[in-house]
């Protein structure tokens, strides 16, 4: 075995290779200009939770991937990654979408809201978040960000929904703990229909 290959050297080497690979992205961007007209630029500006974020996005990248792994917004969960569970639900222009089944390049000129964007500047929780806590809506909590986003969207268009309307609005969000009724209690409390 090569005595000079210490653990420290190996790790340094890996980091160096990583740096070289990311500077390679510069070449990639430069060559993008030679592509046929209409192909997307990778470096784009997104509007996330009211802030402009510059980010390097692959053409085939999903919004869930960008949010979690490039912007550190891990409140958006990936459950199935196939649009079949709702854990990745975010708002795009106030409408619910599955972030796992949306290309980041498709939301360039839109307003994206994730669960991180709900609380007020002073840290006060959004009324839906507070209501879900008071009603003990989550059990394990993995589907909760998605349930919250679906509820926030519902209450924007329908501030006092019936329980049935709420059930329908949250029907695109699975909860494997089966805490559906607790979430519906949370929706009723958030809309001021429970005291």
């Amino acid at each position: 075995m090569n005595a000079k290959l210490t653990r420290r050297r190996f790790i340094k080497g890996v980091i160096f290779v990583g740096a070289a690979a990311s500077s390679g992205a510069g070449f990639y961007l430069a060559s993008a200009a030679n592509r046929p007209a209409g192909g997307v630029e990778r470096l784009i500006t997104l509007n996330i939770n009211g802030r402009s974020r510059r980010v390097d996005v692959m053409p085939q990248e999903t919004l869930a991937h960008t949010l979690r792994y490039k912007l550190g917004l891990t409140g958006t969960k990936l459950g199935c990654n196939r649009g079949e569970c709702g854990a990745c639900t975010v708002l795009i222009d106030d409408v619910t979408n599955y972030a796992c089944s949306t290309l980041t390049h498709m939301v360039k000129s839109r307003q994206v809201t994730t669960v991180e964007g709900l609380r007020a500047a002073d840290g006060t929780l959004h009324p839906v978040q507070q209501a879900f806590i008071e009603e003990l809506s989550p059990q394990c909590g993995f589907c909760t960000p998605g349930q919250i986003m679906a509820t926030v969207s519902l209450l924007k268009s329908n501030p006092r929904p019936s329980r049935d309307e709420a059930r329908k609005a949250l029907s695109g969000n699975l909860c494997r703990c089966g805490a559906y009724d607790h979430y519906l209690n949370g929706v009723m409390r958030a809309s001021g229909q429970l005291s």
Partner: protein
Amino acid sequence: MPSYDNMPEMELYQPVQIQDAVSLAARLAERGWLVGGGQDTYGWIKDRAKRPEALIDLTGIESMRGIRETADGIEIGALTTLTEIHSNDMIRSQYGVLAEAAEAVASPQIRNVGTLAGNVSQDVRCWYYRRGLQCYRAGGNLCYADTPEGQNREHALFNASRCVAVTPSDTGPALVALEATMVINSESGERTVAAEDFFVGPDVDIENPTVLRSGEILTAVRIPAKWANADYFYEKVADRNVWDFALVSLASVMRIEGGNIADSRMVCGAVECTPRRLTAVESAVRGMPRNKATADSVAGMASEGARPLNFNHFKMPLMDNLVERSLTA
């Protein structure tokens, strides 16, 4: 090993004019893939079961959005979402069968991005095919579903030809019932196809469930005023009320004159590769009142001629019962 959570590298084009999209589609041909809402697209690509080299994102083309009144009915842009369709007042009041069909699709989030064009041109859901197996539809020479142990409870009752997959579209039967016309653009211009002829079975083309060919883009759907404000019935039966595809669905429109059915169109979804018109039932109920006695007189007619597979016999009574409900509702 590829990560099945990420898609492999592809080009992405975002045209904002139909002309640009059409020339991209023509230039890329088989290497390109049209994306609207993308809900039928990303699964194929994440699973590596289909590998387009470039995506053509149509969602920036504003002229393909919206619902307009025309001299004879309405025109719905191809990119209009299913949510926009089922919440549109004009469609709800005049073409209720389409509003109900659009509302029956998948889940709220999918309806928020899923488009009308995508719903009618989505590929079939046979799980052997979706898994990427080399079946007839994928260009191979066998069918995995129509075998003694093949899991085929969701498959076809009628007109199977090698492939036994069914149409997954919920809006398709409603559009066929309403006698809609599909507007298709390509580099050689515009052509229109009746909704009934838009869907094709495996005997005509085993690899494509519609007449759309590479280089062609479905840009709008026109619905004539003929069935506006007609009596209608829509029901979709599925294992789950959300996300799931239909086991059997029925869209019907009826013109009632003097208490009797003067004319009707009844179309079943998910029983063959195309929406299936129940022409025998339509002519049998002509001139009869819409009631239980009429329903009884056509009992069993809808499923006549069905050739069930090992596990889908239950779809026959489903069809017949939906027709009964449609006539007594």
